[in-house]
């Protein structure tokens, strides 16, 4: 077994797979003998797992059409307002990090509000895409614990939430979860399933200042969102049902939600 002094540097090397194999045993022994270093190593391992998890979803996203087109030249690339300006966002991040530019930050905030409805629909769709596909981890609280689910989500979101009864539409509640929404807000997601396993989700948040309603589908296709925004609450119903059917289910769900909120 090699004998040498290890240091913090070796923690990084071990973590990154750069520690020579023959030193591994001696390193492990050193780690065991140094609780402080062992704790540091464990923390870095946990942070790395969190970093990987935070960006793992990107790998599953479909390649945006514009990138495919840029590469294959299948269609003329339309220059968007963003094109080649990505560094402005990087610059904005620098500015924000520097701080002291309150007026500017406030400006960005008010601009971001313009797209409230799109933003809501996109968040609801993203949540649906991620969680409705999960078999065992689709919800945090199952329908069997409905009372608790409603109380918990109501408290977190700040609205009196009653999970709509969609049995007449053929859908049963699977459960729900809490999600981030907008800048600071929280949203409740309620997941429903029909006999064939088709899933739809309700996305409800109190973080809304605009009034609007409509339907929304992402540029590349995928599930559709039917949404309503009002002052103080917003709701979107997302699913891949035929549009008319989704619209019917959404209206039923919205009616019941509204009755619950204002009860």
């Amino acid at each position: 077994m090699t004998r040498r002094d290890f240091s913090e540097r070796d923690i990084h090397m071990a973590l990154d797979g750069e520690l020579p194999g023959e030193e591994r045993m001696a390193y492990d022994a050193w780690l065991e003998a140094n609780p402080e270093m062992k704790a540091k190593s464990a923390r870095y391992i946990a942070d790395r797992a969190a970093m990987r998890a935070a960006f793992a979803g990107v790998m599953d996203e479909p390649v945006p059409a514009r990138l495919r087109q840029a590469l294959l030249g299948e269609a003329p690339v339309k220059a968007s307002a963003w094109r080649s300006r990505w560094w402005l966002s990087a610059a904005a991040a620098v500015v924000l990090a520097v701080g002291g530019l309150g007026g500017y930050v406030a400006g960005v905030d008010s601009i971001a509000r313009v797209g409230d409805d799109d933003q809501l629909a996109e968040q609801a769709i993203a949540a649906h895409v991620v969680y409705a596909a999960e078999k065992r981890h689709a919800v945090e609280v199952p329908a069997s614990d409905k009372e608790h689910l409603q109380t918990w989500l109501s408290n977190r979101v700040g609205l009196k939430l009653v999970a709509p009864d969609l049995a007449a539409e053929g859908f049963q509640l699977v459960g729900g979860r809490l999600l981030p929404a907008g800048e600071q807000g929280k949203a409740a997601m309620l997941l429903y399933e029909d006999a064939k396993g088709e899933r739809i989700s309700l996305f409800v948040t109190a973080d809304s200042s605009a009034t609007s309603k409509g339907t929304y589908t992402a540029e590349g296709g995928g599930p559709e969102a039917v949404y309503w925004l009002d002052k103080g609450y917003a709701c979107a119903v997302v699913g891949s049902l035929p549009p008319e059917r989704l619209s019917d289910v959404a209206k039923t769900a919205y009616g019941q939600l509204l009755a619950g909120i204002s009860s």
Partner: protein
Amino acid sequence: MDDKKAAILSEIPRLRRYARSLLRDRDSADDLVQDCLERALVRLDNWQTGESPRRWLFTIMHHLFIDQMRKVNRRGEAAILPLEAGEAQAAPADQVETIASREIMDALQAISPDRRAALVMVAIEGFSYAEAANILGVPAGTLMSRIARGREELRGLLDDSSRRRSIRIVEK
């Protein structure tokens, strides 16, 4: 589709992931990837068939990223301020993120671009030190110190945000 383009196409998800960790905002990250793809197309002849397109593409993208960050720094803050509506940094929540993911993404944005790139390259993208040093165009020793400092900085920032979060919970 020719083989080279097919090989590049299969690298896009990784390029997007790397760009997202560098820039946070989804549209901006995809713009960086698009710039990278366009530059790669122009230089297709520089790439030897048989060689992995991954390192080649990451190198191109990293150069684009660092060049722009330098320009931004040189230009200073004043020139950056008059953003038009469509160009303002979009709310980061254009994608569902757990609190933990959001904190990690924010913390990554707060560390210096050089350290961020080095750390992400090794910890998320899985490049070896030699590969990452090569892509970033720095000596291995520099890469290692960036990784070490980046990790330490990230840990401190995450501790700060979890402390803030527990304060908020206590306040309620």
